[in-house]
């Protein structure tokens, strides 16, 4: 902590496909986290449920997540084809309605 942390996205053109890498900053709390000093749960569930990816406005992928997704979720996947200048957008929504958007242009 202490450092400014924010969602990050990279889109890299490869031979015949575009590689997308996304890192989202989120606690992904299942509500089963415990304080070492007590047996009471210290958190209530707070986790991203839905992540979607668009290329130039067309939806490519949706990921449904449960609380067993690791803290600060990381994903990498490949889009077929693609060219320099494509707009990649990723949007997430969590179980309490918070959301975020990250966008990048393929270079």
């Amino acid at each position, binding site marked *: 902590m202490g450092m400014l942390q924010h969602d990050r996205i990279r889109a890299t053109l490869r031979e015949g496909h575009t590689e997308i890498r996304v890192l989202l900053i989120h606690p992904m709390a299942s509500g*089963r986290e415990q304080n070492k000093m007590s047996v009471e749960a210290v958190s209530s569930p707070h986790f991203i449920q839905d992540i979607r990816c668009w290329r130039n406005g067309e939806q490519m992928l949706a990921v449904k*997540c449960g609380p067993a*997704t*690791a803290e600060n979720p990381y*994903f990498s*996947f*490949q889009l077929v084809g693609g060219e320099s200048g494509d707009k990649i957008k990723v949007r997430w929504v969590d179980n309490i309605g918070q959301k975020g958007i990250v966008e990048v242009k393929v270079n």
Partner: protein
Amino acid sequence: MTPPIHSQRRAVLKQFLSASTLAMVASSGLLLPQCVLAHWPSDAFTAETVEDVLLALMGQAEAIEETGVKFTVGKPTKLITDGQSVTVEIASELANIERVAILVDNNPNPLVMSFELTDNVMMPLKTRIKIVAGESQLIAVIRAEGKLYKTTRDVRVYAGGNA
């Protein structure tokens, strides 16, 4: 008031319960991937067994085949010291993949995540998940052209994740 009435009530309740359970199973089985795509499938994420997850998430599909899916777990692959963040990579040569699910049988809720793919997405997929302490089976299931494909990997985790 009298025992017969109570027992009747019980029977009615029982019937109602089993009927609603059946209805749930039927509707989940009939749900097309298109319908599920619109919202978070809570019945699949709260299910407590691998079978229930697959029924809720994958609907009716032909028999599961144990081929066609490859995956890599953790670095190094066999011993996982930190169950809070385990790298999983899934690859497959299958065409027309509609859905990829990652499950851990001993997590409180086995379903970890579900990818819904369009034709524009290619493997491999890579992500990080939580796995509880001890020995578990990590399961990757792919639905492609109405068929299910599954791969299982045994993992042993020293410090468990709060899955």
